[in-house]
């Protein structure tokens, strides 16, 4: 029996947890973490048209794993560690995948509420029961996995480049080199280093929410909005690049809120879709770099300079 683990969406956030958990369970596991053109095509073909790029890539990983796995782990994440929700598509992921791929061998699809450890464990135990693993073993694996997730420092913070930008967005876009066509490498070539939201602590992010009239509930909103405001206040970043996917529901909101709340940091919004042209993408990055240069020459910090447009980035 072999279990397939598609590496998309929140896999990049919880990689240590997932790896340790399945190692400890002692089952045969196959990962599909590196996406490519075939995976995207397969996903786009089988997924509902209106879904966003990360969901389509996830579909592709699942389709690929279907070829030689008996079960595929498709989690239904309702809440993250601090009770934040993500997006309805994550909550209905098993249904979305099942109707797209026309198969039903998905496990671990009971609701996962990470802020409640007991419920979290219970849902994993229910999932493991389907493949015949007893509760005790799952509990042990669960504790080890939590430990390993805690001990790993995630996030990128680069010091060796002239400029440093805050690379905001969903982890599935930031860490998937295929989805963002080597954005990080391209930035390095332009002498720009990056810092990601994981480098800002949870309490610092929460502090930035004080001015809002309502406590926000989206994971990616809290992470990106909080980190953007914090990094601006501390002067740790020269600009923001927001990596978003086309038709993303929560990003339409997050980007606008960041834009309205920034005081002087320039911001570039890149939208990813299924297209693969790179030229437009490169030009915009170069323009952003030039703008950073000009800004540092003038050394003036007046007015909000926002470089946003709704043209597809021709990825």
């Amino acid at each position, binding site marked *: 029996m072999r279990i397939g683990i598609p590496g998309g969406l929140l896999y990049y956030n919880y990689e240590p947890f997932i790896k340790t958990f399945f190692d400890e369970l002692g089952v045969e596991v196959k990962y599909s973490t590196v996406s490519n053109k075939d995976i995207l095509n397969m996903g786009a073909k089988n997924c509902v048209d209106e879904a966003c790029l990360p969901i389509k890539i996830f579909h592709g990983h699942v389709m690929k794993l279907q070829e030689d796995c008996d079960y595929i782990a498709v989690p239904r994440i309702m809440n993250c560690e601090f009770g934040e929700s993500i997006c*309805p598509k994550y909550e209905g992921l098993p249904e979305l995948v099942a109707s797209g791929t*026309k198969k039903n061998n998905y496990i671990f699809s009971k609701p996962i509420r990470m802020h409640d450890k007991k419920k979290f464990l219970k849902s994993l135990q229910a999932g493991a029961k389907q493949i015949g693993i007893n509760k005790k073993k799952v509990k042990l694996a669960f504790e080890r996995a939590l430990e390993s997730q805690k001990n790993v420092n995630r996030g990128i913070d680069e010091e060796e480049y002239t400029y440093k930008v805050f690379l905001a967005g969903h982890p599935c876009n930031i860490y998937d080199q295929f989805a963002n066509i080597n954005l990080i490498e391209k930035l390095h070539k332009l002498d720009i280093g990056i810092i990601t939201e994981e480098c800002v602590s949870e309490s610092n992010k929460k502090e930035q929410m004080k001015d809002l*009239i309502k406590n926000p509930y989206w994971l990616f909103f809290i992470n990106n909005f909080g980190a953007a405001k914090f990094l601006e206040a501390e002067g740790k970043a020269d600009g923001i690049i927001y990596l978003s996917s086309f038709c993303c529901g929560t990003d339409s909101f997050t980007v606008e809120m960041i834009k309205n709340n920034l005081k002087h940091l320039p911001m570039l919004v890149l939208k990813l879709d299924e297209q693969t042209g790179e030229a437009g993408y490169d030009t915009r990055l170069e323009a952003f770099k030039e703008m950073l240069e000009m800004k540092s020459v003038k050394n003036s910090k007046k007015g909000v300079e926002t470089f946003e447009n709704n043209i597809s980035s021709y990825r």
Partner: protein
Amino acid sequence: MKITFPHIGDAHIVGSLFFNEIGIQVVSPPLNTVSGLEKGSSIAPDEICLPFKLMISNFISAYEMGADTAVMPATIGPCRLGEYGELFKSILDKHGYNFNWIIIDTPTAIGKKELLKRLNLLISERNCKMADVFIALNKTYKVIKRFESLEKRVRILSGYERSRGECKKILKECRSRLRNSKDLNDALILIKEYHHKLSKVIIDKNKKPIRILLVGEIYSMIEPFANHRIEEMLMDRGVSFEKPVTLGWWINNNITNPFYLFLFARKKNKYMPYSIGGYAKETIEEGMNSKKNKFDGVIQILPVGCMPEIVSKSVLNQISREEQIKVMTVIFDEMGGEAGYITRIEAFIDMLGFAKRGEKRGNECIA
């Protein structure tokens, strides 16, 4: 204090009746129009859902008409509606429309005390006793319920009437007179009169009209501008249809019946076992039961980019495949062209007609 709230269906009619009854001034912005939508989209983010763009244009018009306090309902995620208030404030403040905001949130997000405080703030300038407020609320609920039952009857009867368009005319007349009614009592009498009028419409019981179920996202279902007046269009074509999601349905489930949400979350559903926000589970539930309730087809309505309904669209496709239910999804955006929608819906009605008369044309499911 002059309050305003965004348009959703006929809420502005009953809303202003209620607030007038307890002596609070209400500014009701003009009905949604294409130019209003353009104004809204010019300051709203590109990829936000259609209701946001319409609502923001309502707030701007109301501000220009002298409103100073905006009331906005909110929910607790993960659908975008819960964060609307936040973004409205941020954008409108930036453009110089400075409202006082009263956000009516769910008690799970802000606590019962805070909710009561906000509701009290809303009616702080009333000129009557607290008891009268409750009486007015009760009457408002009655108006909503009775008007919706009239609407429901019209929707069903429009397939059976002998001379086409009579039911629609009665409904239109009732709505326009309701707008000019003096108070809630007056409105109740008026609706009763039209219930009576509707009973006198000549019905052909031998007719076998096509029966369609409308499901989908709540705002687009209730606000006629957001769905390009699909209801009137269906009535014109002699279709008998039903629409379970209405304002009264929402009030019943969320306010007057405290057990509904609790029970619904535990309801078993083969295709969507858990509620995922928005009204996706309801959509699926109704779609599944459509065959049992003898509907010929289902039309799903959603504004472009609606997150929960994208999932339910995908699941409805699966249901359509497995249970031979005919489903068509219509996605509305801010484009004003109606011809494409009309053609598609007409084709769907034709297809249902062929299937009903036993002429098999093409495959069963259209997705």
